[in-house]
């Protein structure tokens, strides 16, 4: 089975659901920052304040662009693989930002933090490659 096989299921609905899920997650990230700030004795962290950008830009906006420009990729069997990998990347980067924020507020650090960013980055890169392959094979959708 190739990622370019045509899937009989219609994933367009899934795309809309994903955009909404990411919008909700962005709000959750903002709320987490605000709640954590209450217990931070006035100490703030840019990493935690801006962590909502990962689900907002890397998630909601990213899938909105897919919906508008390359909707055909949802018809490929590889779309689910791409979705899983990209979502994992966004989740990992958002968590990395949260951890960085916790460390900055506490005034400490960890050698393991970099692995979260690396893992997130690798997932995003692999996801984008799969997406690119599917996007460039639009003609197969109509076969």
């Amino acid at each position, binding site marked *: *089975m190739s*990622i370019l096989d045509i899937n009989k299921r219609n994933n367009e609905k899934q795309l809309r659901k994903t955009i909404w899920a990411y919008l909700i997650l962005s709000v959750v990230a903002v709320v987490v920052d605000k709640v954590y700030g209450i217990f*931070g*004795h*006035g*100490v*703030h*962290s*840019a990493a935690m304040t801006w962590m909502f950008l990962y689900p907002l830009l890397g998630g909601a906006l990213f899938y909105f662009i897919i919906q508008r420009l390359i909707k055909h990729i949802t018809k490929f*069997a*590889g779309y*689910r*693989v791409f979705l*899983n*990998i990209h*979502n*994992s990347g966004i*989740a*990992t980067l958002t*968590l990395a930002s949260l*951890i960085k924020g*916790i*460390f*900055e*507020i*506490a*005034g*400490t*650090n*960890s*050698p*393991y*933090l970099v*692995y*979260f960013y690396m893992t997130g980055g690798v997932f995003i890169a692999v996801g984008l490659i799969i997406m690119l392959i599917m996007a460039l094979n639009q003609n197969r959708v109509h076969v």
Partner: protein
Amino acid sequence: MKKFISKPYRWAAIYSILLTVAFSFTMLDTFVLPKSIANATTVSIASKSASTASSSSTSTSFSTKSSSQSQAIVTDSSYEDENIKITIETVRKYDSNIYVADIQVYDPSYLKTAFANNTYGRNITATTSDMAEDNSAIFAINGDYYGFRDGGYVVRNGVEYRDAARSGDNDALVIDKDGNLSVVKEGEVSLNLLSDKGVWQVLSFGPGLVVDGEIAVTSFSEVGKSMSSNPRTAIGQISELHYIVIVSDGRTSESSGLSLLQLAEEFKERGCTVAYNLDGGGSSTMYFNGKVINKPTSGKSIGERKVSDIVYIGY
């Protein structure tokens, strides 16, 4: 494999578990799991030569109550013997309780530092009062909580434990063999250079409050990104072997705490030519003659926080 991760929610569930485990491990490793790196080594000032900590080179010294200490005149707020004179004043200012210790010692060897459990490492902690009692300290304050970070020079009682400078513009407190305090930029001065100059203690928190007789912080200066008043611990020097230590309570309705500028002004008013901010917040503790003088709090309940190290006066 592709088929496996193509299943809706299966991959999400598995990866969520993996992320939770990774998050939990990172948090435990950073905040909880103790990691012993070296036992504390005691070197006398007179015999100090270039020495570096290692886990195998350990010698222990046992503090004994000297004859001077047993003949000391002690009150609730003062201590005086032939070598050490300490006076503690409690001041109400800036809507805060401020504890000011004026300390004079006859010899620099009476200004000391100690690690929790006599061990250098990460997440190895004890309360300031427990460490003070373990070392028969007359007076003690919390140190820089070096074990909460991986960076920042650590030199204690003549032994180098960590030579990694923190990234960015960070001040370190240097105490030389003559007991003189100075503030250096970690990024500009290597620990080797400091060692060559005969450094005896290096604490890494900061910032420097008073440097060369001038206030070195502004109303915008803060530890990390905090702009609020906080409990504080800081040490300064007026003249040779004459020190001022200030601890303030904070984060309570009774005592709001000091800004770094207010803290610096207190040292300057008392004639300090150099002063340095140590770990504050819930760590801020002043111990004197067997008692904790201030009211340490992290903002919830009153109680001492366990920290990595102390600065103390004792034999």
